[in-house]
């Protein structure tokens, strides 16, 4: 009995110690677990991803000249490294756990960032050289040309080669095709061979010119390759992988943590049972009891104390959080969200945790009445099956009736089947931060130069608008607006004029918008607009279009007339899709980048789909279809004249639309809509027929019309066979000769039909009609077209001529084009001649050039055109002189 009693006692004591050790170990394990850790990791990773995306966007922006220096590109890798270190610090305790693959993944991410940084360094080196060579090349060509003088055959050959190389190099920088590269290399070799025949000065300049062409060839290829490689570095994928690994690990820990709590309870119960058993045994044997009692009593007391302490602490989740200013809570995952735990330090806010736990409506007690709705909405969202952790800010009522601003971050905890078990979260007092923020924004709400709101105000309003919209208020849109080529204004006219321009832009922006909208200047020449109450996405497009047009109107600043345009990036709020205000800003920025990249002076959304959707919906497609039937269209005619004599040699037919609401619309306003709406073929047929009819009428009246020019659009060319039929029929119907008609096709259109191997132009040519390339110099300017299509005329775009008078390099480019056209025996028509100075310049350029423009005559109605044709010449005597030119001269581009 005694021996067996002793052995039972020994076994009990051993069991007690084992249980005690297990309890301590379990407790230590739960100490390592913290709900707030995961939230911080998620925030870190999100931040990491955002910085990475911004870094890549900055590279792209540097590539198109939107960043004037590279400092942006050096701060991001440092920031990424710092964030990654923080992530590693959070995940360090897993590094020893073979089941957790997160550690090697951070190594992979680190390597990807390093690789990307290396590529970006190479990009900077190449891009800076490329940038310089492209900027210098026109000057290098001009210097070389003037050193050639009026030399012999060798000089002329070199001059022609230089013209060609200059243009192909500039085109190569837009689109570095293999064919173009080969063409340049061949031309470079020729130039090298011809160089030796030149006098020393010219030889030298030819070498410099050649070196820069060579640099463009090499660096453009390198820059393009590097940009592709940079985009291919899988940093974002690595971050996502890391994020997935962290989620999995978090889930594993949460499950383990719950298991640990159950084990603790079980072991505590066992221990209590053991003690009871021991007590009964001890009562049976007093002597043994006395001997053992002391030891057991000590152990018992110790254990009891431990168990109570630890059990309470553990059920309170986390002693560290307990002592920190952060309040931790758990809600049961039923729809009424009963509070099942809240940290004891809620007492700091004057609340008794026990009473809160007992209260059926704890949210009523804690959340300020004004914020109840926001809070309830947030809780309702948690119930959605795929809801993620989130954060809301609201005012918390303290026990004494005061208000404190708090941030509440929470995560839904789900079982593997996705059912909501609990909601766990933390509450942080952010009253001081809020107060500081409010103080700062009060101090600095406006931009001093323009009086507009500043970036901080904009951001604040954006956050408010976003929060309101996510609660079901009206949608809104943000517009990022950046002036194109603002810098040359500053450089040439000085900062004071630049400042005047910014002020005027600010005024125009405000004039475009409603009172409920917010216009802000973000810095430099960058503006932003918060469009409140956006009815649909199309209305954001309409507003952006209006802004773009208004800002492109000429500015009269301190005696200077200045023209700038603006690029606009639009990001509309889309319910359920827009991720957050910061993401919207990145998207608006991306849209702005797209707008710059695709040619400036336009607006873009951040995705193609959105761009198209808006364009399609914005407009007039339907109305245009009806306009043809209702006879709202009319043809105007602009004379084409010999530059020197003013003799009329042709007429260009331009379609106008007497829109019942919008007034007289020029073709630019509705052609692209007609293309999209599918009415372009009907419209084109109407124009063709009406123009031919007019020509017949003139002929019948004895008025001679040498050539009638008609614009063709892409849609017409796409329906090639129909077009050929229409043309043949019209010619036959009105008794004209094919050579009476010249069809103008813009470069942009030409590029597209070339791409699709459309053969309609050669077939038109076979009919005997003439072909002209419109807007030459604005797009892809390829001399291949000239050969392929045997065109009769090049029409030099008005925009090119405009700056030629003041700017030697543009003048050089026009001369280069004229020279080339002469070699290829192609005529030139210069569009948009407005002033005597422009006419003089063109005459000095030495070509037997044809011209059209306000200097000679604006487009006029058919009757007036008949008069012009009768008189045979037209010139400044009979038309408005340079000083009386209307403020907004109309360009003759893209009109069918």
């Amino acid at each position, binding site marked *: 009995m005694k021996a067996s009693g002793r052995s039972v006692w020994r076994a009990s004591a051993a069991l007690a110690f084992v249980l005690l050790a297990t309890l301590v170990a379990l407790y230590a394990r739960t100490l390592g677990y913290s709900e707030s850790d995961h939230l911080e990791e998620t925030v870190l990773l999100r931040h990491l991803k955002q910085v990475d995306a911004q870094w890549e966007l900055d590279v792209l922006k540097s590539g198109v*000249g939107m960043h004037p220096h590279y400092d942006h590109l050096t701060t991001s890798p440092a920031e990424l490294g710092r964030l990654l270190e923080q992530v590693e610090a959070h995940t360090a305790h897993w590094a020893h756990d073979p089941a957790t693959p997160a550690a090697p993944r951070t190594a992979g991410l680190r390597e990807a960032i390093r690789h990307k940084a290396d590529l970006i360094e190479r990009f900077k080196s190449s891009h800076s*050289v490329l*940038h310089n060579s492209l900027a210098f090349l026109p000057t290098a060509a001009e210097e070389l040309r003037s050193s050639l003088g009026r030399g012999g055959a060798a000089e002329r050959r070199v001059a022609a080669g230089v013209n060609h190389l200059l243009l192909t190099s500039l085109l190569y920088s837009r689109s570095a095709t293999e064919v173009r590269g080969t063409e340049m290399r061949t031309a470079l070799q020729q130039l090298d061979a011809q160089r030796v025949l030149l006098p020393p000065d010219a030889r030298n300049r030819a070498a*410099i010119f050649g070196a*820069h062409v060579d*640099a463009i060839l090499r660096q453009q290829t390198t820059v393009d390759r590097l940009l592709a490689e940079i985009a291919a570095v899988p940093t974002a994928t690595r971050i996502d992988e890391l994020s997935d690994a962290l989620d999995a690990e978090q889930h594993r820990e949460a499950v383990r943590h719950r298991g640990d709590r159950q084990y603790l309870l079980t072991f505590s119960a066992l221990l209590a049972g053991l003690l009871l058993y021991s007590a009964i045994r001890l009562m049976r044997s007093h002597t043994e009891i006395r001997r053992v009692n002391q030891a057991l009593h000590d152990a018992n007391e110790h254990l009891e104390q431990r168990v109570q302490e630890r059990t309470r602490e553990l059920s309170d989740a986390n002693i560290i959080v307990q002592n920190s200013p952060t309040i931790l809570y758990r809600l049961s995952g039923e729809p009424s969200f009963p509070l099942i735990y809240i940290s004891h330090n809620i007492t700091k806010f004057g609340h008794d945790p026990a009473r809160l736990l007992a209260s059926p409506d704890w949210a009523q007690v804690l959340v300020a009445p004004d914020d109840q709705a926001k809070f309830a909405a947030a809780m309702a969202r948690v119930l959605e099956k795929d809801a993620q952790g989130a954060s809301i800010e609201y005012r918390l009522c303290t026990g004494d009736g005061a208000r404190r601003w708090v941030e509440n971050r929470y995560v839904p905890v789900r079982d593997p089947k996705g059912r909501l078990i609990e909601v766990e979260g933390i509450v942080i007092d952010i009253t001081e931060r809020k107060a500081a923020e409010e103080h700062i924004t009060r101090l600095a709400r406006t931009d001093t130069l323009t009086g507009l709101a500043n970036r901080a105000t904009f951001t604040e309003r954006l956050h408010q608008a976003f929060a309101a919209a996510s609660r079901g208020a009206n949608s809104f849109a943000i517009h990022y607006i950046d002036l194109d080529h603002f810098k040359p204004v500053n450089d040439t006219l000085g900062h004071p004029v630049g400042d005047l321009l910014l002020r005027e832009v600010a005024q125009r922006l405000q004039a475009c918008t409603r009172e409920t909208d917010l216009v802000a200047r973000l810095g*430099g020449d960058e503006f932003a607009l918060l469009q409140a109450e956006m009815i649909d996405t199309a209305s954001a497009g309409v507003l952006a279009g209006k802004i773009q047009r208004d800002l492109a109107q000429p500015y009269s600043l301190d005696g200077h007339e200045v023209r700038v345009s603006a690029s606009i990036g639009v990001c509309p709020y889309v319910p359920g899709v827009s991720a957050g205000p910061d993401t919207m800003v990145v998207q608006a920025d991306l849209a702005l980048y797209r707008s710059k990249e695709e040619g400036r002076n336009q607006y873009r959304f951040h995705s193609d789909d959105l761009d198209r959707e808006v364009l399609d919906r914005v407009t007039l497609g339907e109305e245009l279809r009806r306009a043809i039937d209702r006879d709202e269209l009319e043809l105007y005619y602009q004379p084409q004249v010999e530059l020197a004599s003013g003799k009329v040699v042709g007429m260009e037919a331009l379609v106008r639309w007497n829109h019942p609401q919008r007034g007289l619309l020029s073709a630019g306003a509705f052609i692209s809509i007609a293309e999209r709406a599918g009415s372009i073929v009907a419209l084109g047929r109407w124009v063709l027929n009406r123009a031919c009819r007019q020509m017949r009428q003139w002929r019948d009246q004895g008025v001679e019309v040498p050539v009638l020019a008609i614009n063709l659009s892409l849609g017409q060319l796409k329906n090639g066979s129909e077009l050929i039929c229409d043309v043949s029929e019209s010619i036959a119907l009105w008794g004209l000769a094919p050579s009476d008609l010249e069809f103008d096709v813009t470069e942009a259109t030409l590029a597209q039909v070339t791409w699709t191997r459309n053969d309609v132009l050669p077939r038109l040519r076979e009919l005997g009609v003439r072909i002209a390339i419109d807007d030459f110099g604005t797009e892809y300017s390829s001399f291949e077209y000239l050969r392929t299509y045997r065109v009769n005329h090049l029409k030099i775009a008005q925009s090119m001529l405009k700056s030629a008078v003041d700017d030697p390099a543009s003048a050089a*480019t026009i001369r280069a084009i004229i020279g080339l056209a002469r070699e290829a025996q192609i005529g030139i028509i210069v569009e948009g001649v407005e002033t005597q100075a422009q006419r003089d310049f063109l005459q000095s350029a030495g070509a037997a050039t044809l011209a059209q423009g306000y200097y000679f005559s604006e487009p006029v109605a058919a009757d007036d055109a008949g008069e012009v044709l009768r008189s045979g010449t037209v010139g400044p005597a009979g038309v408005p002189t340079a000083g009386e030119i209307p403020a907004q001269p109309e360009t003759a581009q893209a009109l069918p």
Partner: protein
Amino acid sequence: MSARPRSPILAAAALALLLGLAVSASSAATGEPIQPLPSPPEQDTARVEIGRRLFHDARLSRNGRVSCASCHDLGKGGADGRARSTGVHGQLTDVNAPTVFNAAFNFRQFWNGRADSLEAQIDQVIRNPVEMDSRWEDVVRKVAQDAGYRSAFISAYRDGVTQANIQNAIASFERTLVTPNSRFDRFLRGDANAITAAEKVGYLRFKQYGCVACHQGVNVGGNMFQKFGVMGDYFGQRGMPMQADLGRYLVTGTESDKHVFKVPSLRNVALTAPYFHDGSAKTLEEAVDVMFRYQLGRTASREDKESIVKFLHTLSGQWEATP
């Protein structure tokens, strides 16, 4: 209307406008390609003071002959005015000593960018057999033997004198070596009269000729790498090849990195002759000539180059403390 180009970059910018190319200096949001120096981050003054002493302390070198300040004399623009410096045993260093002023704003340290931080730079100089030729255990021992250092370190750092703390102290001091308020910075901040009309022309030329393509940002350089001789064979024509001429190749081993160097900052450049990693240009004029020939690959009038030199003089800033 003249047929000769009046200003090459204006012309180029206009051409870029015409052809819709993104080649020219379009300012976008942040305006000028050169930005004023920001104020340096707040440093722990006790650590800065230790760093100041260490910076001037020759005991860091093996035989006590050379301190950081020997080659980076704060009275001589943060450099030593020699083509190559003299190290601890009287041998010449591989390259010209760059200025320590504003080094904190450089994205990498050394001409070939082999150090990512000031701390790493300090480590390499201490152990370089030509420069200081020390071993860290000796440096730590010597510093710890000095009672003044010992008590200063104990109050500024929890773990007293260690290699990392010595590096940190010197780097902290170096982070205070910034020269804000140059006349040009005042101009950038809106004081239109801070630089003369001639200097403004110089700045315009600096941008027009493309110097600014590499020398940009807050440090007017110091934020990228570039090949020396990108438009001409500098090393072939200079002769006497040295290993240091290989530049970044010595760090990466990549063929295309041969002759690639960190673009140096041009702040205080008027005070830090001679120029380039080989110290081959004795004057700013010479340096500008070399840059035109081998980096820009173009010629310019004497007048334009003089303008640029005038502009470069406006980049000299002020250092508040005394050496």
